[in-house]
């Protein structure tokens, strides 16, 4: 028989080709979306910690300044996670019998460190330095978000390279005065478009050519 296919095949074949084209486009879109999703970046994910430490309470409620605990932030690449001693400074006086804080007391008693789970985890080939960012007017909030509203610490930014470049290509959009570094919910006194470039000049922030050099972050 010469006629191999039923008449409906014509419609089917054309429909399937159109579907294929759209499916490929959708797949491409999916991949591009997925690679920036929280699933991949680990942003906004609940992370179980040995002690459910609430930044909301300590920062927002009690009003402890960031640098009380993260002491190295102005001098070291690492902001520093406080030693148990820092917790005990207060918690030997208040809530000193709370079962909630037993791991902290146990740590201090037994001289065994607490094992916190890293929330902001950059790849090992990225060399981020807190001290220089803080010195040049990048606020804590810019990268870490409204910590004072986080009952549990979470990552709010993607921490992907394009996100880093966003600021390194034009820091004037993000910098703030040095005395506002630890402010949560900072509002610029002037329009950022005016203040930003001024701070960039004042703080001697390097130009885009330097800031986007590979070896600035990768060594």
């Amino acid at each position, binding site marked *: 028989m010469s006629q191999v296919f039923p008449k409906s095949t014509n419609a089917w074949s054309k429909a399937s080709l159109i579907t294929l084209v759209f499916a490929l486009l959708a797949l491409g879109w999916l*991949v591009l979306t*997925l*690679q920036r999703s929280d*699933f*991949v970046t*680990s942003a906004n994910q609940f992370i179980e910690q040995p002690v459910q430490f609430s930044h909301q309470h300590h920062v927002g409620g009690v009003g402890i300044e960031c640098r009380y605990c993260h002491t*190295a932030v102005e*001098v*070291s*690449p*690492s902001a*520093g*996670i*406080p*030693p*148990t*001693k820092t917790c005990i400074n207060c918690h030997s006086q208040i809530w000193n019998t709370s079962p909630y804080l037993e791991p902290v007391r146990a*740590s*201090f008693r037994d*001289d*065994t*460190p*607490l*094992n*916190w*789970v*890293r929330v902001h*985890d950059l*790849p*090992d*080939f990225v*060399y981020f*330095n807190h*001290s*220089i960012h803080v*010195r*040049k007017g990048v606020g804590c909030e810019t990268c870490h978000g409204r910590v004072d509203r986080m009952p549990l610490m979470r990552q709010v930014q993607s921490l992907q390279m394009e996100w880093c470049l966003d600021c390194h290509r034009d820091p004037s959009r993000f910098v703030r005065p040095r005395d506002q570094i630890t402010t949560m919910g900072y509002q610029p006194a002037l329009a950022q478009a005016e203040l930003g470039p001024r701070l960039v000049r004042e703080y*001697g922030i390097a*130009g885009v*050519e*330097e800031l986007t*050099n*590979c*070896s*600035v972050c*990768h*060594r």
Partner: protein
Amino acid sequence: MSLDPTEPNPEQPLDVQKRGTLRLRAGQAIDLQRVREQLQQGGPPLWRSLEEVADTAEFRNYLHREFPANASDWLDPVGRRGFLKLMSASMALAGATACTVQPQELIVPYVRQPENEIPGKPLFFATAMTLGGVATGLLVESHEGRPTKIEGNPDHPASRGATDLFAQGSVLTLYDPDRSKTVLHLGEIRPWSAALAAVRGGLSAQAATRGAGLRLLTETVASPSLAAQIQQLLAQQPNAKWIQWEPVNRDNARAGARTAFGQYLEPHYDLTQADVIVSLDADFLSSEGAHNLHYMRQFASRRRVEDNADNLNRLYVVESNHTVTGGRADNRLALKSSQIEAFARAVAAQSGVAGIIGTAPAGSDAFVDAIAQDLAAHRGRAVVMVGDSQPAAVHLIAHAINAAIGAPVTYLPTPELVPGEQTAALRELVADIRAGQVQMLVILGESNPVFSAPADLQFGKAIQSVSLRVHSGMFFDETAQQCHWHVPAAHYLEAWSDARTIDGTVSIVQPLIQPLYGSKSVHEVMATLSERPERSGYDTVREYWFAWAALNRTTGSTGSTGSTSAPASAAAAEFEQRWRKWLHDGFIAGTAAMPTAAALAPDVATRITAGAAIDGLEVNFRRDPTVYDGRFANNGWLQELPKPMTKLTWDNAALMAPATADANGLHNGDIIAITHDGRTINVPAWVVPGHAKDAITLTVGYGRPLAGDLGSGTGFNTYALRGSSAMFFGGATIVRTGDAYDLVGTQDHWAIEDKNTGIVRAATLEEFKQNPAFVKQMEHLKLDKRISLYADKEYRGQQWGMAIDLNTCTGCTACVIACVAENNIPVVGKAQVKRNREMHWLRIDRYFAGSPDTPDTYVQPMPCQQCENAPCEVVCPVSATVHSAEGLNDMVYNRCVGTRYCSNNCPWKVRRFNFLLYQDWNTPQFKLQRNPDVTVRSRGIMEKCTYCVQRINAARIQAKREDRAIRDGEILTACQAVCPTDAIVFGDINDPNSRVARLKGSPRNYATLEDLNTRPRTTYLAAVKNPNPALPHNPMVGTPHASTDHGAGH
């Protein structure tokens, strides 16, 4: 097309390592005649190996025939087992890497944060490392309590910031996973208390005889507090004996001084004052040992010709082996070690030393005359130096010459506390043991006498009769195996101690880390022999110095038991202050020894015992340039470090002159049987141009059966040949066995033809004076203006560059190992080095010029040239290597996909590729060592010198935080920091006042391969040599007369 007929049988994986790589077929000697002819006819002006010059058909055939293969890959059990699993995993990876979520990581903060410790910031602690009875002052970089990198202590009066390659390598030994970890009794794990009890038991058994059966065997002791402990023991056990033993000891120098001056003294030459230096087998320019660091710096200060060309000194070297120092000589004479005495006598006779007569060895008259005249012409500004391997007689003669010519030399007490002649002491110990007088033997330290003692003493066998043998060392080595008890010893970075450096200055050795295992410091082991057996090392050291401080509070020198009237608490507080200062500074100021008024015995000439002449072949024993006496045999960095002159890695060999090899029909890798004093060993031959004829040099320390995973079985045990009567040289005969061995070097892999392209440039002092800009005339494409298709890119602001002075560089290779340590460079192993896959970012290129018998040697450190118009960058498809605004040729490991195109397109071939997973990702100890500021590279990634970009970044961040510019000299690259001669200078080339900019302004400054217009940021300062015009010398390399159109002319 059968490319690989000699491919090894996969059934025999071990053979792969041992097959001949660098040899011709056994039995095909080099045609030396042909070599000479080639050279006379204007053969290659620069050459790297003899085969290259000879250009023999056999050599070429061999090159075609030999196709080594990687047979072990067939047999790797992990590979086979994991094959399917990883296959599927890798396929999954291929699709899924983009979406991989990083594994969860823990943060473990301190419970109580130590003072001064800022997480993420390295700290530097001053300490010192002792080797061979001399300490070097160090600064050790520590990251969160992990020592990671050794630097020299710039404030230390003796070394001024330089370190040698053993100090650089020592940090790896700390983390060596093969270190001994527990107390062992006959191989079984025991608690420390059991060892303590055994020692106490042994000691109390000696009480009756007041220690008559007790012997203590240590390394050369440079620690005052340890010496005090030992003296205390000897006071309590007056019949006990203490023996110090180092296989590469300084007996000859000590004996020479004792005979000449009546006391053990250490001569200190002031090379800054010396216009003429005569080295009689003294290898004082190699980066081995604290003393050399001092001399190298002084020597280099007289090789800089920018301000005053007449500053240039002249170095004569007379030696048997071709050493680093020989390579730097302005005039060099290769002479058998046994003839150097005669040579010295002849010089002495001509220099007016009364009572010494002698005729120069055949053929060296002119050299003797030239030296004698030069010495006479530079009275008061010339020195004669003698190597430790020369017998006491030569030292005596040199003392006499130096006295006669008024050499700038002072005599100081020795750095070791109790100098002596060690071989004799060891011989006496063995005699005592044989006589049954010894019941208890305590062996401390790394000198490993069972392995390293002279073979004729049969030390290992002899001590079997001692009923209690206790050993403490960092490794369960050959000696530990022959002892009842073994106590793991602490590394110097783990324990408190103290030590004297070459001029007597004391450093407190402070630990940077708690002992990784249950190790005990030597002080703690010694304490077990005292009435306070559990005294900590810290207490021992501190108490000793407390007592010393009490004596020296006001007087400043030892002697009076001055009355200490001050209350105890005030004294303690004051001491605490001083102690802190000592620890901070890294040394105790004012402890340097005062020169002794050494009077040369008037009858010195009669005290010289003439050495016996050696007819025929002579065998020399020398310490190894990289594994020292064998104690670093398990140190991968040092094993893989190419030996400065031979460029061999992972092995030692019988070094010999081309003429000797020729006469015996030998070629590189041919195994010869060397017989000396009735003992025979088999060693592969390696031909060294410029080696003395009829002499063979063996380095010791290889062939250890119990060195550890890396070191065991590498090389050949030459201690087995060495006897106590001829510790450094003696007569020998050799026989070719017909077997061959695979010796692997990093440079002479294969070479036939060379070409002169002005990579190395040199001139004599005369030529330099006539034409200071001689380097410019050596460019073979003389373009006045570099033409380019593109507009020149302007580099503004801070621009990094480097200048390397070929006149001060000695080729000691300390920079290579410093680079390895700083930049987490992996060790690849012999099989991979054989495939040209060593990972060193910085290599020291070594070229010979002239005839194979009397070659000139040129060395050239070759890091990344950091070209402005970098050929590597343009060809990278993924921007993994691009230029930074500061002119760095950035290498981004995480972006690299590994096409290797950049390496192909690099004219200097300074890029290194991780062909396999070279980095050890599993051993936890090695993880501790790594520099956290440098990415650890995985396989499939290109890497290269970054000018230590991590240091640049650290300095830049520091400077920006302080709102200032980076100061000149604030950034030292790792190679620059370690360099004993300050030959490497790094800095901002746009700052006209920076050191590097001033050097780049020197007329000697040139860029290699300038005609490619890549504009390297690394440039070189051409060498200026100062040969005696009265002696024949090879034409300088790269000079106009040598740069005739060569290369393609063949």
